[in-house]
């Protein structure tokens, strides 16, 4: 190996080492970020917060929403809190969002991480109230209904339904949350009189299911498409259906008169 070849190899090795060190650092760094981002789902965000990935990208962590919140609801996450460092969040059980009509936190946001398009606080979706029906006093048969009374969207976000009780003539009056109206302000969680709140605000992604696009609720008037399943015509030899009832048809009840 001549001298220049050796120097070349050393040079290439150096570059490789540099890149490897940067990559190692970058991987650890990315891991730290990813771990933090995973905690985001536990944080209840201020009104108008964009969808979490966009919010996490755009929030500059300046805390101006926190400064302008008149009820000291909002906090900036310190290292160790259950939210990515420096992002605003609130704990509804301590201080809920009182849904100011002028939404000062959104106005304070300089980046647009809190969407300036949010003009009516009723359209905010900070989280979703979820009831633990095993520990809810109303569901246990008492007349509580505090969450229903304090709800700023009473009869829209929380309704009271009557449920017949098994062992008594009296009906139960149970609260139900409706996700199409609940803003996640948390006034219900703060008001809940049980030792640990039986109604609490959670990120909808933690609690909401999704039935899937293919389900059609044919008995509901607002489901437009009730029968969009069209069997594909078979080709070739097998196209002719066999005579008589197809397998799986209701042959067991054949001959029964329904008159």
């Amino acid at each position, binding site marked *: 190996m001549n001298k220049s070849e050796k120097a070349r190899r050393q040079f290439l090795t150096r570059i490789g080492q540099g890149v490897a060190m940067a990559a190692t*650092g970058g991987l650890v760094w990315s891991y730290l970020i990813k771990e933090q981002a995973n905690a985001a789902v536990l944080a209840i965000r201020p009104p108008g917060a964009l969808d979490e990935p966009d919010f996490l990208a755009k929030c500059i962590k300046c805390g101006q929403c926190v400064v302008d919140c008149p009820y000291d609801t909002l906090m*900036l996450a*310190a290292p160790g809190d259950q939210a990515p460092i420096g992002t605003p969040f609130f704990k509804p059980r301590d201080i809920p969002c009182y849904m100011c009509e002028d939404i000062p936190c959104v106005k304070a946001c*300089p*980046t647009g991480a809190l969407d300036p398009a949010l003009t009516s606080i009723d359209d905010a979706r900070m989280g979703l109230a979820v009831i633990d029906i095993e520990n809810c006093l109303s569901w246990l048969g008492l007349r509580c209904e505090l969450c229903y009374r304090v709800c700023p969207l009473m009869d829209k976000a929380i309704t009271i339904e009557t449920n017949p009780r098994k062992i008594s003539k009296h009906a139960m009056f149970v609260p139900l949350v409706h996700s199409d109206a609940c803003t996640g302000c948390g006034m219900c969680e703060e008001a809940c009189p049980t030792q640990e709140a039986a109604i609490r605000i959670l990120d909808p992604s933690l609690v909401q299911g999704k039935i899937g696009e293919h389900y059609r609720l044919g008995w509901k008037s607002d489901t437009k498409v009730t029968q969009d399943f069209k069997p594909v015509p078979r080709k070739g030899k097998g196209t002719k259906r066999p005579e008589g009832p197809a397998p799986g048809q209701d042959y067991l009840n054949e001959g029964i008169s329904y008159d």
Partner: protein
Amino acid sequence: MTSEQKVKLGPNGKPIRYYQVPKTLGGKLKAWRYMILRRILQFSTLLLFYGTFNWEWKLFERPVLSGNLSGSEVLGLIPLADPFAVLQILLTGHWLENSVLIGALIVLSVYALIGGRVWCSWVCPINPVTDFAGWLRNKLGITNAINFNRNLRYTILALTLVLSVLTGVAAFEWVSPISMAHRGVVFGLGLGWMAVAGIFLFDLMVLKHGWCGHVCPLGAFYAQVGRVAQLRIAFDTPTCTHCGECARVCPEPQVLNLKKASIAHMVASGECTNCGRCITVCPEDTLKFDLRSHIKRSSITEPESVLP
């Protein structure tokens, strides 16, 4: 040997003198003047944020300084923002509202004028921590445990920008101990003290000027911003005896390359933080704050023959 022969002469033919710590309090305060001003600015900035948030300080019925060093608003009118944080966010592919863009532009322009790293030594809340660590390691005579190239920070700066693109969030803002510190002072520290303590120990025990001089990508960013800064340390070439006092107190001694300085008649590097330490220790008053354009003009009229 005569006493005259004992005296060492500088390249300008004058005897080399060294810095004497002033004996009187007035002399000491004068020697510490920039350090005192820096501490006042550093702590009063944090105090204004703290007072506006916790005590609702108002001026003309408007909040004085709302937010923190990542983004803020002066008197509810003038937006300010950390241009490095804004750059990272833009690299994630998200456009931002005008307010924060204007704020970043204002801050960027100011630092481009007075020196990017003026942020580092005059505003950054980590600076008192690392200065204290530096002072203490000097007192205790602690030597470096490891050493890095000072250009490591530019690799980390590049990594910050690449990771912002790849992870979709402002990569440095998510781990920045600087932001943890100033956010912590205003909005609650949590475990943020760990990051600050980590930097203190690193600077004290592991590497001299370790964080600010080798690692911090924000300082690296501002070093680039300050490349064309107007406010510079002017270097009066004929008076310099090369005693080296300036480089001994400088947190970025590579910027005080006397050969380069004597040609440029100033400390030209953007890595200079304009802290003013060198000015106060120079026994010959060779160094002073001046404007780049003024230095250039006066250096042209100066006769070249006095150069050593």
